[in-house]
């Protein structure tokens, strides 16, 4: 197959290979080892294929690439329309990168219903990738809602003690919010006669949508509410800590690593893309919520007695940076926001894997149960520290680049945004290092902790790629930024006039 052929089919392949794997897995006999290997091979295959995207990405070209647009259902007018730009391409890669790691981290920790677990994991992967590749609003909404089912099941079936409560809470919280988006999508379809994102955007820009002026603020909110819950933005964040604490490790990794980014991706793509004026008009309170989230998430993280809850609240804080960057409407802010999404996916994904590793040994996340673990588990401690440092934004590691760009952009938009946001650098050091100290330093207090085994081979195999990625992203962020930048410029075009004064000075 030549490259051009592959270019139009690559997104379909990358999206559906995991689903194909899941379907085949139904017929694989219940030998746990085979199932694991099969799931690993499938997710690795999707990852390798997805590398085609950055390898053939045209930096000079604005708009979507690797497009495929086939009319699918005549009435309603639904297209099978996929394509990626600098934003979505990297989110696809983030998903395909984290998925094999999820398989590895579940290698030994999932013992019951192994087959169902990996089937769900692979379906999850397809739905997540589909969210990022869809350029048809119906298709997008389908994948958007479809992510809920495997995730709710992963939590509800394979989770810990309060898993049903957490699963239901997660499901309802995000489902109810999505209804508003559905309403907005249907309104747009009714007026434009197409679900195609590009067609809708075109119609809006050319003013061909009747009644758009009065409806736009509500449409904007419809999308925004769905995304804000997913991010999650303060004060609709309370599903997240519960979902994380109860979720199995792989579920947490995908939840924090990818699923939350659906919200921020949606804001970039739909709120800014379809409703630039409303986005700009609403920026003040959204930025305020983001800033509250940054500080609030960090402060609440600091006092969590549970390691996983702590990481969950830290996600709220980090995602606040993303929203802050997006609604700063500066080039630096948007580039940074996108980079924080990727960096947070890698670092927090790794943090959840690390939390899972200790849970497997001790069956608890309570920080006070630990202490002095650096002695029995030195390699584990070293990995943990490395990821903690990447998460708290040490320069040359991935966390710094995004946060710096976001804050520089926010500061440019409004000095106080940057100042309040920058105080996050203090808080993140506080909660992460304090947690690290309580878990790893001091004397080993309980007998059971003194004999814990250090990392095994599979666990190392899951952690090394994440650690290496954290370093590469920190040292050479241009690999990512150079293809993100065109998408940023494209997104900012409608704001050029509105924001001219802000961008200039």
């Amino acid at each position: 197959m030549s490259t051009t052929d592959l270019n139009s089919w690559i997104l379909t392949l990358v999206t559906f290979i995991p689903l194909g794997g899941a379907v085949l897995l139904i017929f694989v006999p219940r030998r746990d080892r085979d199932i694991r290997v099969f799931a690993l091979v499938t997710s690795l295959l999707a990852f390798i294929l997805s590398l085609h995207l950055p390898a053939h990405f045209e930096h000079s070209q604005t708009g979507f690439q690797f497009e495929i647009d086939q009319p699918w259902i005549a009435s309603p007018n639904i297209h099978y329309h996929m394509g990626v730009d600098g934003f979505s391409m990297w989110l696809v890669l983030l998903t395909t990168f984290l998925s094999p790691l999820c398989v590895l981290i579940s290698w030994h920790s999932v013992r019951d219903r192994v087959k169902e677990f990996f089937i769900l994991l692979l379906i999850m992967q397809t739905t997540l990738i589909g969210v990022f590749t869809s350029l048809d609003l119906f298709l997008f909404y389908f994948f958007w809602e479809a992510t809920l089912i495997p995730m709710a099941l992963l939590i509800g079936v394979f989770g810990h003690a309060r898993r049903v409560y957490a699963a239901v809470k997660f499901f309802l919280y995000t489902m109810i919010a999505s209804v508003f988006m559905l309403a907005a999508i249907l309104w747009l379809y009714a007026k434009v006669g197409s679900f195609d994102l590009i067609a809708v955007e075109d119609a809006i820009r050319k003013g061909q949508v009747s009644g758009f002026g009065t409806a736009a603020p509500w449409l904007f909110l419809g999308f925004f509410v769905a995304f804000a819950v997913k991010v999650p933005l303060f004060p609709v964040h309370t599903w997240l800590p519960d979902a994380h604490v109860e979720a199995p490790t792989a579920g947490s990794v995908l939840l924090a690593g990818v699923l939350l980014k659906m919200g921020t991706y949606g804001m970039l793509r739909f709120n800014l893309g379809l409703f630039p004026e409303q986005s700009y008009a609403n920026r003040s309170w959204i930025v305020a919520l983001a800033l509250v989230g940054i500080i609030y998430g960090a402060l609440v993280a600091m006092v969590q007695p549970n390691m996983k809850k702590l990481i969950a609240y830290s996600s709220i804080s980090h995602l606040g940076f993303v929203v802050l960057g997006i609604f700063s409407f500066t080039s630096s802010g948007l580039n940074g926001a996108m980079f924080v999404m990727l960096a947070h996916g890698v670092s927090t994904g790794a943090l959840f894997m690390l939390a899972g590793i200790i849970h497997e040994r001790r069956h608890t996340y309570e920080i006070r149960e630990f202490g002095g673990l650096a002695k029995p588990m030195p390699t584990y401690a070293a990995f943990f520290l490395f990821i903690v440092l990447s998460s708290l934004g040490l320069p040359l590691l991935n966390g710094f680049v995004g946060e710096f760009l976001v804050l520089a952009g926010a500061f440019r938009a409004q000095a106080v945004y940057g100042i309040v946001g920058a105080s996050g650098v203090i808080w993140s050091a506080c909660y992460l290092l304090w947690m690290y100290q309580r878990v790893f330093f001091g004397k080993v207090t309980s007998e059971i902790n003194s004999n814990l085994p250090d990392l095994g081979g599979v666990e190392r195999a899951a952690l090394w790629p994440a650690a290496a990625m954290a370093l590469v992203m920190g040292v050479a962020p241009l690999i990512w930024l150079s293809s993100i930048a065109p998408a940023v410029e494209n997104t900012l075009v409608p704001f050029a006039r509105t924001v001219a004064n802000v961008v200039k000075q």
Partner: protein
Amino acid sequence: MNQISLHLWLIPILPLLGAAINGLCGGRLSRHAVAAIGVAFCGTAFLLVLFVLSHFFALQLPHIETYGTWLRAGAFHADYGFYLDELSMIMLLVVTGVGLLIHIYSVGYMWEEGGFHRFFCYLNLFMFFMLVLVLAHNYLVMFIGWEGVGLASYLLIGFWFTRDSAASAGKKAFIVNRIGDFGFLIALFLLIKHFGSLTFSEVFGSISHLPSETAGAGLLTTVSILLLLGATGKSAQIPLYVWLPDAMEGPTPVSALIHAATMVTAGVYMVARSHAIFDRSPTTLTVVAVIGTLTAFYAATIAIAQTDIKKVLAYSTISQLGYMFLACGVAAYSAAIFHLMTHAFFKGLLFLAAGSVIHAIGGEQDMHRMGGLRRMTPWTFWTMTAATFAITGVPGFAGFFSKDEILWQASRVNMALWGLGEFTAFLTSFYMFRLWFLTFFGHYRGTTTSINEGDKAGQGPGLLAINKSRTGPVAEPEHHPIHESPKVMLIPLIILAMLSVAGGWVNIGKNFEKFLEPVFRAGPTAYTLTETATQAGKTIGGATGTELLFTLTSVLAAALGFLLALLLYKIQPDLPARIAASFRGLYTAVLNKYYVDELFSILLVKPLLAGSRKILWQGVDRRIIDAAVNDTAEGARRVSDSLRHMQSGNLRSYAGWVALGAAVVIAYMIWVALA
């Protein structure tokens, strides 16, 4: 810009390689191999610096090398690049030179310790970041080094991580530094916003067109105050000095390298590097001078009451850094860098010698349990004497020249600054000779149970004792006859002692200042006082009469300090206790460092934690938001319960159902598409 490339990047990369090797596979190597790697990579970096020095005078300065773009967004970009001029040359020599000596010393000092490879990994990592810091050609690359040395410091302070106090001290250092970094970052954002760049040459180029902000605070005042906040964190000045005394929990070579000779001077370096900004803000310069002087004085008062030998030296370091800030504040940057260099020699030596003392007597750090050690550890005694004479300003020794220069420059700006500086010099002399007498003179006061008592007294057990208690039973003190340290530790002491004696001679005839003059020229409209100072530098020997008078005052202050120490700790050793008894309140306050840490804890840390826990988490999150959500969820759960009854038997194969359902949907869609 320059035709020839010196491959400056090799200088920091070498220690990084050493750190990587020792970090990744040091555990499988022998101690000899670990030590060889650690020292060799640092040593090669030093040789490279000498190589650069040999080409230095043929270079067109500043010599800039860039190696590609680090990050870019919109019009802003930051490159990886290094900047070599007279200032960074001196810093390179000090960092790699003193660094190499301390690496060598550490081989002996840490030989018996667990985690030997970890130690050298961290030490090399520190060298990498410190060299990046001093070589950076823009603020963002400097920030790599700036944060990185903080990390190395965190790791090394908490090296003995099984000890809670060490782990807490490391964390405290990092967090307090982050408060400073917050200021640093905001300053960078301001620079980006107004100049679109963080590269030194571009920023300072744009600034050179701006007038001095004499009329009132403006952009440059804001930027410089924010940078100053960063500097006070790194260089342990008021108000962010609190981490440095705790940092003494780290192994003594670390205290010498990071918390005396190099890292803590990064703030001074940064201010000197940014002099173009500071020069244009008289307000900031005044603040810098006042902070420096107050810190110098304040820390010295605490030093006189400390009983832990390393704590005395820690407060002394804060105090000496205060002198450097004072120098910066009166725009005498050369004097600040000069003192930075001599201080690296003599304070590095003081710590290493103190380490040698601690090593000799089995880990004891309380000076009340020392005494009479000059006969048992003669090399340590004589090298420490050289360092003590240097810091107290005995004429001819290194510190005499540099401190004198600072006070002389201060006197030209404000007599109050000079007066307090001079009084601090007296205090310095007093606490240093107090340390000297208590440690080396009189009778040995250590007892067989000293280690345990040290524990009870809350001083923390001695260093070597810790290791013993970690690896096995506490060794009996008899196993530690008081002994002189091995050669590998003594040779660095001797070299540093020679530098502490002769290091100040480089500025005879103002040669050092002339060397640095191209860096600090600039500042045309800056500050009338700068001009005066520069003129003073030009008319060498012009004002010798007055200068001599000031020098005599300094010598007198040092002599008074010596005499008072001699009286209290040699002639009348029971007098200090009586004085302490009659000023009990004041003495306890000083001994407890004016209770600043406790104040921080009560006013800041505890309310913050309690507020986050009680109000934000349990209040807002649980009682308000979640309660509302749960009401909804409760209703929904009833619905879902009824739904679940319908499929209760199928729970097991949910996964299969989902796959099947998805397959059906997909199949339908494909069918429609084909149809």
